[in-house]
């Protein structure tokens, strides 16, 4: 609890002055709020129903502040104005408190959000690959929100509860020590009850959350797999499965309501008992003549003012752990190393880059597992086209990942134009390489924006030209809004082949020294593929091209084909050379042609 409070405090201490001012405003505001019921106190006890012993010194002091007994007696409206002024000023300071606290919190939270995003942008790809997207998003959104609510509402609530209790204490003690005791007698049990009760029923909350998550994923699976559900006519079974989870969720949620019903009713009973004790004691003292009516009014008002915030405080204290856990999850992301850490490499000049690539004895393994690349070596002359083929998992994509410096080799080195990749500034390296992935990522904005994503100053003519090379221009013009058509969740859905062609156009627009097509034509039909490859051929020697493909017709025209299997280059040569030798390439070619694999491509872009 102590350490929890400590690390949350550290977060707050990022804005010490604003929070300090907020606390100051809050103290003033509560003080003014308590001064307001003092006015009826002195008016009743001093003017309307003067006690036999006469007013106390404290009352006399207050009366003189307001202009004396006679003046008030003659001008009761003045009491009204004083109350109004006091509450209005209390309100003003409460406003300051609210705005200041929100200001400090929002500064901290905005910084937190920006840092998180920045960290995710700069983190190594490996970190993102290892993480689950949903989990990362949760850390960035709902966890940040938990911390935000804690800082902006809960901390303020706790502080307010404390201020509401401490500020009136001196006044209350001055009026009547016995009444003061009677007014706070039950506060400790009220707080403790809330803290312990909420700690104990935490599991009930977690159960409901888990049941809801299970319910959500059931619906999610059903909706995304609805075609399979229908294809096997499993609607009834699916509904049964859903019913179980839906019922469980309802029962757990209902149980939570019942548990909370006990909490609220019991703690209401405690709070009301506190009021009864105060009122009862007051009545007894009143009948004994040891307390004045106005003072009793003050105590009744004061108890109602602090007892509810104090109860809230107990609940919040019990939930302190939540914010701590959330903060821990946020800090986990912020603690990830940045890709650019400790790096200052050479900047490349794209215009003179030849695009020659050399892999020298490169070995790579994911963490503990077996290496996916064993001492791979090859050279690519600048401006040539090479192809990588081999079965799934043979290491093709790893070569690309290493070339892009998404991952670093464990052994060996990679050279670009004779320079070790490690010596080149990472951003500069990547801006001279363009990669097209098998499942390209498109941003949910217009097609034009997507194309110009890698080169924001591209001219319309250049965009259209790139789109033409990638054989996507006609499809784009076919959309109602042409290049302004928005893609993604809120826009049109593109077929796999259209996405790939769009990504190729996007890559070409950057006119890179090295163009990498990582199985980027798999969903494009053979006819279109041929057109694209021919257009690329025309641009030949403008860049080095690396083609990864399953379909051998795609790689036939490469200057050299590297055949990989289990992380090693097992053969290399031109298409014709490889075809003559017995081996994996020849075998694949036979199967594919006997099987007329090209028809895959013919029907690759399937309309829904």
């Amino acid at each position, binding site marked *: 609890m102590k350490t929890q409070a400590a690390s949350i405090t550290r977060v707050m201490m990022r804005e010490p002055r604003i929070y300090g001012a907020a606390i100051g405003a809050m103290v003033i505001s509560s003080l003014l709020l308590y001064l307001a019921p003092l006015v009826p106190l002195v008016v*009743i006890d001093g003017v*309307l*129903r003067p006690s036999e012993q006469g007013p106390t010194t404290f009352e006399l002091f207050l009366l003189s502040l307001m202009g004396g007994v006679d003046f008030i007696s003659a001008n*009761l409206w003045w*009491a*009204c104005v004083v*109350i109004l002024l006091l*509450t*209005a000023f*209390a*309100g*003003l300071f*409460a*406003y300051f408190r*609210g*705005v200041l606290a*929100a200001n400090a919190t929002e500064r901290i939270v*905005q910084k937190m*959000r*920006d840092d998180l*995003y920045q960290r995710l942008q700069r983190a190594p790809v490996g970190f*993102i690959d290892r993480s689950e997207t949903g989990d990362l998003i949760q850390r960035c959104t709902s966890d940040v929100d938990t911390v935000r609510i804690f800082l902006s509402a809960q901390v303020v609530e706790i502080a307010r509860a404390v201020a509401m209790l401490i500020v009136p204490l001196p006044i209350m003690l001055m009026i009547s020590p016995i009444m003061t005791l009677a007014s706070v007698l039950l506060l400790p049990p009220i707080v403790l009850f809330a803290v312990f009760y909420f700690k104990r029923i935490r599991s009930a909350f977690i159960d409901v959350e888990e049941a809801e998550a299970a319910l959500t*994923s059931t*619906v999610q699976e059903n*909706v995304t*797999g*609805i*075609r*399979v559900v229908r294809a096997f*006519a499993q609607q009834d079974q699916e*509904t049964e499965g859903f019913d179980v989870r*839906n019922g469980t969720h309802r029962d757990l949620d*209902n149980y939570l*309501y*019942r548990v909370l*019903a006990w909490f609220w*009713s019991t703690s209401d009973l405690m709070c*009301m008992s506190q*009021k009864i004790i105060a009122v009862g004691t007051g*009545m007894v003292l009143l009948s004994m003549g040891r307390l004045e*009516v106005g003072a009793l*009014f003050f105590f*009744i008002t004061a108890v109602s003012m602090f007892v509810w915030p104090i109860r809230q405080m107990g609940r919040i204290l019990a939930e302190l752990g939540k914010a701590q856990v959330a903060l821990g999850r946020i800090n986990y992301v912020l603690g990830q190393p940045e890709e650019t850490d400790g790096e200052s490499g050479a900047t490349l000049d794209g215009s003179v880059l030849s695009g020659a690539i050399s892999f020298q004895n490169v070995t790579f393994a994911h963490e503990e597992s077996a290496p996916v690349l064993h001492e791979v070596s090859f050279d690519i002359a600048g401006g040539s086209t090479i192809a990588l083929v081999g*079965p*799934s998992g043979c290491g093709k994509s790893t070569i690309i990942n290493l070339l*892009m410096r998404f991952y670093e080799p464990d052994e060996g080195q990679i050279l670009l134009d004779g320079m070790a990749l490690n010596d080149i500034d990472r951003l500069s390296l*990547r801006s001279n390489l363009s990669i097209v992935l098998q499942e390209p*990522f498109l*941003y*949910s904005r217009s097609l034009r924006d997507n194309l110009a994503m890698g080169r924001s100053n591209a001219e319309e003519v250049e965009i259209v030209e790139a789109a033409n090379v990638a054989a996507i221009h006609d499809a784009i013009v076919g959309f109602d809004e042409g290049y302004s058509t928005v893609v993604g969740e809120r826009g049109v859905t593109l077929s796999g082949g259209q996405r790939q062609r769009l990504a190729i156009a996007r890559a070409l627009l950057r006119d890179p020294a090295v163009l990498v097509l990582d199985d980027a034509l798999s969903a494009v039909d*053979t*006819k279109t593929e041929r057109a694209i490859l021919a257009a690329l051929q025309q641009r030949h020697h403008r860049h080095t091209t690396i083609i990864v493909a399953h379909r051998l017709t795609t790689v036939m025209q490469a200057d050299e084909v590297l055949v990989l299997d289990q992380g090693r280059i097992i053969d290399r040569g031109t298409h014709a050379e490889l075809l003559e030798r017995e081996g994996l390439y020849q075998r694949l070619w036979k*199967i594919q*042609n006997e*099987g007329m*694999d090209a028809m*895959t491509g013919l*029907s690759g872009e*399937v*309309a829904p």
Partner: protein
Amino acid sequence: MTQLSPHVEDVLGSVDRGLWRRIAGHGYPYKKSALSMIGSGILLAVIESLLPLITGYLIDAIIGKADTSQITWLAVSYVGLSIGFCILVWWFIVAAGRLATGMAHDIRRASFVRLQELEFSYFDTQPAGWLVSRLTSDCRKVASLMPWLLLDLSWGITFLVVVSVGMLIINWLLGLCVLVVVPLLVLVTFIFERKLLRSSRLMRKTNSELTAVYNEGISGVRTSKSLTREVENIDEFQSVSQAMRDYTMLNAVQTSIFLPIVTSIGGMGVGIALWVGGIKIEQDAGLSIGMLIAFMQYAVLFAMPVRELAARLSDLKGAQAAGERIQGLLEREPEIQDSDEVRSRIDAATKGKRSGAAVDGGDHRIETIEFRDVSFWYKPEEPVIQHFDLSIRPAETIALVGPTGGGKTTIASLLCRFYEPCAGGIFMNGVEYRKRSLHWLQSSLGIVLQQPHLFSGSVARNIAYAQPSATIEQIETAARTVEAHDFITQLPDGYDSDVGEGGGRLSVGQRQLIALARAILADPQVFIMDEATSSVDTETEHHIQRGIEAVLSRRIAVVIAHRLSTVRSADRILVIDGGEIIEQGSHQALLEAGGAYQALYRRHFAGPE
């Protein structure tokens, strides 16, 4: 992404009463709980309005040295009412739980069932995430609103009425003076609730924008990095996070103004009571000190019901969009469903079940399938399929080949009745399929799609999806048929390995093999394969060919073709383009005919020009 254009006009709309009446209909089975909420609200309001009054009487009794029995009676009723108050609190929370969770449960179930019936074109237009939030957050929002709406309406109105009337009876002049605060409170509260509703909507919208940007940043990490977009992305993100901060501040500022104003109005009420009441006491005009104190407490308390009523009203407005979405889903009639006639036959058939008959009492078998003059379109001016005729004989394997967008998948979807023909008809054993049970048809078909969807859970469970009672031997046999057994046993837990969400832990090719095994285990009367093995390794695909052929040979099969060996062994090959059959025949006959099929075949082998 950067341009924030949240639509806020809808905020200013009023409460749609018809909609809420229909939503309230879901609460009918829980009417007892609903009545409990209303009853508790009224009783609580009465108790809460009595307590200050009793305090006032107590003070007067003590000051006036009334006899002990009266004081005791007052004190006991104060304590008794307080205890009653707490019991009511327990009671209404329990009732609220029953009402809210019950309604949420029922609405969810009805929505889920409706989703199982709706046609695919509905799913084509609705992103999965939206549909999921309909059943989760929308249901929760609408259902959890109900009990508090009932409670606060009955409590707030009762409290306002009882206290106002009570004050006017006790002292009409002072009562009137204190009541001056009510219209002020109402005015201020409603103005601010509206502003707050607006700013909190802006916050929510920006928040989902923020989530979307994070999502893009994470899912698109490779693309962003290879386009070296980091700096621009960060800049763009900051404009969203700045907007989020601005709207949050706006909301905080509004709240910080609103609450103090309410407190000040309460203070004004206390002041007025003290002023007017004080004069009355000074003049000895029939007002006791105790009553003055009670009036001052009421002045403070008035703010509460007004605020709660306004808050519920904005909840209602805030949840209105969610309510509309839910009702929209529930009230949507499925375009493809059993006709009334079929339904009555199903009812009749379940009563007197004949052996060998389907659920609808018709023939269980599918031996012939016939497309008669079938046309299909999304938009009438752009037909996808036109005047399509096809007659499939028993146990025939039909291969569909042809270019992208030629209509192959549409033909398969029509056959599965995922879509229905816009003109013409499809006949199973001579009976138009719309005259048969949809469930019977679809459970007779084995459909394998190009995009294989797996459900999270074990490999075994996925293969046995359509046959949950299948033995492990049957599962393994199906897996062996498609050569999936070897890779499955190499997984960490073999057949018990979790495939992950959507099968994400397996490669697309592996998923396709499992989807194929799943269909084989289901042992359907008709097999439909749409590019079912497009991502399977060239060599593996080669190996499973014979097994698949054996499976297909025993029944009608429609295969959207893919490997030449499948095409070659098909009984009939149809070349589809422009929604029509442009050529058909056996492999050999088509090659010799020298038409489109031959051209297709040639293009593949021609190599580079």
